[in-house]
């Protein structure tokens, strides 16, 4: 264990896992209870357009991808709010368009030699110290916003019509929720890659919902579960020399199935 912690890239990986878990636990919970998993998937794939833009313009990847994805998420929020029957189509279009833009920009970038796989499947072992600091700042932003508007997010998520009647600014908070999802997605792409980000946003909250009776408890348990999956996935990845992102998701899936089985048995008993 001390051997592992002695290596800087492993310490960075653990910090990245911790920060991603916190964001996933909090925002993943809002995504799951609001049934916005597909939209989060759309946001994740649109992020690839931001990655492509960063390489094309020679800008830092993380801030550029955040800006691009936040704008895309706001566009999705505006296009889908109050039109639930068509929101999946809007998300589907932006999902594909974002990926296409990213691929085209990568293609036309002179001297392009980026490891595409690291963005598709994550590279938690290669997260630099600068990105860790950026992730910490994003986490602080996410936690502050959710803390400040917790009651409104709860009201909006539980019963949007009633929340509106109580004067909750539902449209604004809905857009803010998409922005937070975009920020979280960018963070988790570092850990699990954009293909697998949905799993880390979804599985820990799904597990947590089995055992909790309030939104904040669900957020806390989802964060803890996500952290355990990240640590276990990293350990398995290190010992068996397999892709870390896929290893983390495999741990999460296995953990969820175990928890679901235990929960079902307890209810039957």
């Amino acid at each position: 264990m001390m051997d592992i912690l002695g290596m800087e890239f492993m310490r960075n990986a653990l910090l990245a896992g911790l920060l991603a878990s916190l964001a996933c636990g909090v925002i993943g919970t809002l995504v799951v209870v609001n049934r916005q998993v597909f939209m989060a998937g759309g946001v994740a794939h649109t992020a690839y357009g931001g990655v492509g833009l960063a390489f094309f313009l020679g800008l830092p990847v993380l801030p550029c991808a955040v800006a691009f994805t936040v704008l895309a998420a706001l566009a999705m929020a505006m296009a889908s709010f109050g039109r639930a029957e068509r929101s999946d189509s809007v998300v589907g279009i932006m999902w594909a368009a974002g990926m296409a833009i990213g691929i085209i920009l990568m293609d036309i970038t002179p001297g392009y030699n980026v490891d595409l796989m690291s963005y598709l499947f994550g590279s938690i072992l290669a997260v630099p110290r600068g990105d860790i600091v950026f992730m910490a700042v994003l986490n602080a932003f996410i936690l502050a916003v959710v803390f400040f508007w917790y009651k409104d997010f709860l009201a909006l998520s539980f019963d949007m019509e009633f929340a509106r009647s109580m004067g909750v600014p539902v449209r604004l908070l809905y857009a803010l929720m998409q922005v937070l999802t975009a920020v979280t997605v960018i963070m988790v792409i570092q850990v699990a890659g954009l293909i697998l980000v949905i799993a880390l946003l979804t599985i820990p909250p799904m597990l947590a919902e089995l055992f909790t009776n309030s939104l904040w408890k669900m957020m806390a348990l989802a964060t803890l579960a996500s952290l355990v999956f990240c640590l276990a996935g990293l350990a398995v990845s290190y010992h068996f020399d397999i892709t870390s992102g896929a290893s983390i998701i495999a741990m999460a899936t296995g953990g969820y199935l175990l928890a679901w089985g235990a929960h079902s048995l307890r209810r039957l008993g």
Partner: protein
Amino acid sequence: MHSPDHTCSTCAGHEHTAVPGPRFHRLLAGGPVIEVSGVSFAYADREVLTDVTLSVDAGDFLAVIGPNGGGKTTLVKIILGLLRPARGTVRVLGADPADVRPAVGYVPQHALVQPSFPVTVRDVVLLGLRRGKGFFSTRRWPGYSAQEKRKALDTLEMVDMADLAGRRFDALSGGQKQRVLVARALISDPALLLFDEPTSNIDPQGKVCLFDLLSALSSSITIVMVSHDLISASTRITSVAVVNNRLIQNRGRELTPTMLQLIYGTHDATCPLDEYIRGMSSIFTAGGRGSAK
């Protein structure tokens, strides 16, 4: 109060204790609680309400009935201030609806809330506490004070749900959920309660329990209930209005032939619907005693 031989899982047959205290007695004296005058409203190019006029006095228990798509829910949203009419004026408690939102308790259909959600019955009721206006006016601390929690339990006591305060909301029956949503509306001490289809997706026993509760509440709070469930709506109300693009109001609870015609259209005596319509009319004339299904 329901008869002693009536039992159901929702209220376990005991007497409803819904006796709103002095905190609900505000604004009962004076002019109409709701004044809707010449209101028209359209979604895109389809006008769903045309020149609608409605007046509700303090202490009324008004049922607004009509077919699906007839404009009932739109009318509720206009009274709540969530929709602005294209023409006409709306006054609630003597003011613009948007300015008196905290004084209006709204009870939507329980079927519209998230079917699976990690929230306790008590926390659902606490969601009904008043909130300031604007984006930054929410109370900052995510928790609730001991006083607020006590008030939530007191309000749940009124709807006979205090025993289930710690249970997850999604574990309740339809009737129990609707009672919790009533408590959520009551916790802010409203002068007016607006119900949108309160009996949808509720079993017959649950409906009887709910109307017992509403009847007890109506002694001190003005209630407007929108429903397409004619038989359930006939019990215990004091006045009735029908809406199907246009609106006809009756100060009593009789459904006049003109009102029935607005809902169902015109039918000759050989049409099976004609017999049903005459049956409806007699139920409302009799006050629907014992007819709730």
